[in-house]
């Protein structure tokens, strides 16, 4: 086990930023911390890294208790903080070399690593630039480079793709996968479902300081009682037919959005043909009809009663 955090409680006055938060990270995996703004993702990372005092609980990294002076543990960790944190008056290259040098003493190795990471994040053309001359996305890449240049065994990335365009975002996500292939264990926080789904081996869903569930994407989806979701739009009739639809076998519930019906079924056999029969029997003409597997959003909705969408 790379990280073991048990029952962490962190209070800010009345607010419980972390409320018996639990997290286990296995070697070599990409673990996603998924949850809405303010759910405590950053707080969790700061507690694990011993930046923040917490009220209860226990944290171990690499099997040892983590403290502010655990320099040997810190040597093997890389952090990419949520806010860009670099020196404004050092160039891209100097910034990376400074942070790399806090871990790697050998000058030659360091030169190599710095060059490698600059290529890795695609800042070669910009290495003599000062951060204020970089665009937001490029600044984020620099922020990432400063956290990973020393090839740490364990990397924390706190929402590295926020406010980044699609191209930069894909670039960053691909990079993270590569880091993981090269042997780093990764903790990745995000409030984007798609990112978590495509990137992470396992996901912890968080809300209000609690870790609600943990598992692979498939495991999480299997928690929901919804097994299949069919979305249908009809030409006729004008009136609401939700109640009629509910009479179809195995229908859990029916929702309506943008004039379309969202029909959740509790298990996955013959649902579509049952629905087609219903359409025929009622002389309906459909304009749209497709089936969807449940998403993480459904999981989140079911756990918290609210959607995880911006």
């Amino acid at each position, binding site marked *: 086990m790379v990280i073991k955090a048990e029952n962490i409680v962190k209070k*800010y006055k009345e607010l419980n930023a972390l409320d018996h938060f639990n997290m286990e990270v296995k070697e070599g995996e990409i673990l996603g911390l998924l949850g809405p703004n303010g759910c405590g993702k950053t707080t969790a990372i*700061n507690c694990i*890294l*011993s*930046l*923040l*005092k917490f009220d209860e609980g226990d944290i171990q990294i690499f099997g040892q208790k983590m403290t*502010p*002076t655990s*320099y*040997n543990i*810190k*040597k093997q*960790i890389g*952090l990419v*903080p949520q*806010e*860009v*944190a*670099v*020196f*404004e*008056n*050092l160039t891209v290259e*100097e910034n990376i070399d*400074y*942070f790399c*040098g*806090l*871990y790697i*003493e050998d000058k030659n190795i360091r030169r190599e690593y710095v060059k490698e990471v600059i290529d890795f994040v695609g800042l070669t053309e910009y290495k003599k630039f000062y951060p204020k001359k970089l665009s937001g996305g490029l600044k984020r890449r620099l922020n990432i480079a*400063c*956290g990973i240049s020393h090839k740490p065994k364990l990397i924390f990335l706190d929402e590295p793709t926020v406010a980044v365009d699609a191209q930069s975002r894909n670039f960053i996500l691909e990079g993270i996968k590569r880091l993981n292939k090269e042997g780093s264990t990764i903790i990745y926080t995000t409030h984007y479902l798609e990112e978590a789904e495509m990137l992470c081996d396992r996901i912890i869903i968080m809300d209000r300081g609690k870790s609600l569930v943990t598992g692979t994407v498939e495991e999480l989806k299997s928690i929901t009682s919804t097994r299949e979701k069919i979305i249908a739009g009809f030409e006729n009739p004008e009136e609401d037919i939700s109640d009629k639809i509910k009479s179809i076998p195995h229908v859990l519930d029916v929702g309506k959005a943008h004039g379309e019906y969202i029909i959740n079924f509790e298990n996955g056999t013959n649902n579509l043909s049952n629905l087609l029969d219903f359409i025929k029997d009622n002389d309906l003409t459909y304009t749209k009809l497709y089936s969807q597997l449940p998403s993480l959003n459904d999981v989140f909705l079911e756990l918290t009663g609210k959607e995880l969408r911006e």
Partner: protein
Amino acid sequence: MKNILRNSIYLGKNMFRDMSFTFWGLMYPIILAGFFYIAFSGIINMEIKTINVGIGRENQAYPILENVEILNVMEIHENDAEKSLKSGKIDGYIKNDLTLVVDGSGLNQTVIKGILDQIIQIIALNEPMQNLDFEVNYLSAKTQEANPMLVIFYSLIAMVSTYGVFPGIETAVTSQANLTDIGARINTTPIKKSTLLISGVIDGLLINIFSNILLLLFLRFVLKMDLFTNIWYSGIFILLGNLFGVSLGIFVGSSNKKSPGVKVMFSIATTLFLSFLSGMMSPNIKVSIDKNVPILGKINPISIITNSLYKINLLGNTRNLSQGMILLAVYSLVLMAVSYLFLGRSQYDSI
């Protein structure tokens, strides 16, 4: 050791290239010096108008005073002294017991007092009168040197010697996870906080001493002012000013959660106010404070430096400097010690 050096180089580069350092550290002192020079140049370059001193013929200081160029010695009996002072015929009267009587305070009175103090010292030490060298280092050379207006420039030098306060603030906030994002980041790396702080103090001192040297060169070679007759003693006070400034900066930086911008403004205002009290805007303020609340001049760090520079270079007096030196050193140590309490907390309640 290697770590300290590496950190000093990078943190130093970061501070040195900062726009606010370029302004507050390099340009502002020179702009102020230029401004003061223009504003007061009329006064500085003016021949000191003759100072009238009344004294009795039998007074032992009479023959000495007679030889002082800028003094116009008038033979007046002690009984008539008051009348002459009131009418403004003389600026001061020296009684037979070598006490000075004045009516009002001003620059002329300050000059007389300065000269008289020296005479008393020499008489007390029982040195032969020929050893009286104050004419050399005080009066005979150029009128400029004798001009108390130079207090303004000593005060300016004193103020900027404390400008290590800015790199001090920078050092404190970059090392604290709860003060800046970069501080938080650095606290997750394996660097020791002591390494970070020592590097910052070294940087602060080097950068500010560099900026002080620049100002002194500007005063000497551009404005052509001869401010220093004893560069060694002066240097000690300027260095102590630097130490005090950096310590104050680390204290201001570490003791509260205000933003770095607020901390910098607070420091500028504080040093400016202390300099104002020590006579940077007008020497009359200093004269008036020395007269009414003398303790203020003795404890205000910028006054200590200003007064000492004035004494060392203008009055050629290097005695009794240790009290000021000790006080500045004590201030610095206390500020550092208190800051250490704030900086020592390595885990934070809130970030």
